[in-house]
């Protein structure tokens, strides 16, 4: 595809780099974490050099993800404030999923679903980071009741977050012309006009 100079800039290079630091650390965390989640996934530990290495690396990757997520959180927080139009969009999300997006309410840079995703991921991230510290026996020591509670929270938040990220990835695959925004930053004007019309008008002035 030849890049059209009239394409719209959706993400800056630094936003994209930030996203991929979060993304790569998340994938490594999910793979190493699943190894301890259920015996069916234990072979995934081999990707990290065995169970001991997976156990050693997982929390450090967690610190990396927590810090890089925090950066992305502050970058995009203001853009993800829910508006009445988002609620309307969410009420009619069934039509969208059904493949009929022509009558959906006009959306800004992010639609209601993306905003929900943003806040749900932020909550999961907070729960994972706090409970993760409780479980990190190499450096921390907490009362066993708290560790037990932390283990349940960590596993539950992780499962929810993996499901959310699956939806996040699928949405990017499903809506054609989306992934390039995170590869090299631009989207076509037609893409913007179809999926985020208010944002299209804002950036083009049309």
């Amino acid at each position, binding site marked *: 595809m030849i890049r059209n100079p009239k394409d719209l800039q959706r993400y800056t290079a630094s936003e994209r780099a930030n996203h991929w630091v979060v993304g790569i650390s998340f994938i490594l965390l999910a793979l190493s974490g699943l190894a301890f989640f259920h015996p069916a996934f234990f072979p995934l530990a081999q990707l990290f050099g065995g169970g001991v290495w997976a156990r050693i690396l997982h929390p450090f990757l967690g610190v990396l993800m927590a810090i890089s997520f925090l950066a992305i959180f502050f970058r995009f927080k203001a853009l993800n404030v829910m508006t009445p139009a988002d609620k309307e969009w969410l009420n009619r999300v069934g039509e969208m999923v059904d*493949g009929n997006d022509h009558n959906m309410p006009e959306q800004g840079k992010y639609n209601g679903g993306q905003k929900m995703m943003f806040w749900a991921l932020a909550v999961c991230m907070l729960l994972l980071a706090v409970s993760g510290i409780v479980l990190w026996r190499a450096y921390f020591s907490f009362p066993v009741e708290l560790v037990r509670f932390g283990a349940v929270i960590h596993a539950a938040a992780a499962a929810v977050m993996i*499901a959310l990220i699956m939806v996040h990835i699928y949405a990017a695959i499903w809506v054609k012309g989306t992934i390039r925004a995170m590869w090299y930053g631009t989207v076509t004007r037609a893409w913007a006009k179809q999926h985020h019309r208010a944002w299209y008008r804002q950036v083009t002035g049309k």
Partner: protein
Amino acid sequence: MALQSLDIARRSATTTPAPGVRETAKVAKLIDVSTCIGCKACQVACMEWNDLRDEVGSCAGVYDNPVDLTAKSWTVMRYAEVEEKGRLEWLIRKDGCMHCADPGCLKACPAPGAIVQYANGIVDFHQENCIGCGYCVTGCPFNIPRLSKEDSKAYKCSLCSDRVAVGQAPACVKTCPTGAIQFGSKEQMKDVADKRIKDLKERGYAQAGLYDPPGVGGTHVMYVLHHADRPELYQGLPNDPSISPLVSLWKGFAKPLATLALAGVALGSLFHYVTKGPNEVSKELENELEKEDAK
């Protein structure tokens, strides 16, 4: 520890059955707290047999030394001074792994084969498979396993599984000068305990009894207690211990369900794509913009 020749009945992080056609008698260690003199010969024998040399500690003002279990101290004597009916009672309990029939450590362990339960009931840690996460510590209702600072592996009493495998009693049993620690089949140990409890009851300990808590399926280390109604008198021996419901939730049905749910999301996405097709930018919009450009 490895180098064992005992049948394994249960293995951590393993969802298929272990070989189980051979029948092995269940063993047990019986600790008669009422005849223990607190000499710590068992601690010494444990160090000796298992080649463990813990750091030399300092006196904490009580007889307890070392003051707690460590990765290198698999058994410690705990001394409690209790006043009962105006008399001082010095309750001395040899603490260490209870070898639960339903072991919380094994349930919590994510590393296949790092914790095993032999067919004879002994729960053993195989450190070569241990990944050092400390989940066993989280799962244990008795606060027994300890992570080593040196190698990040978890350690605890093995009930001298290497000795038991060749027909020997554990080192602590062998060395106990008063016969307060005995070893044999679980049935036999219960019989020994019954006689002793009867004796204690005749001597004024009406609440004497056996500590073999059913909440963890019974244990393969049992105590004869003078005050079986109040095990907490013995330096916090738990009354009616069981695997925490949080550990059961964490390691029980929730995870297979979550795994199915994740598979559902992945397959749901795939079939959504297959049935609905991609959400493409409409040709009309593209053409419209191209026309504008051409102007």
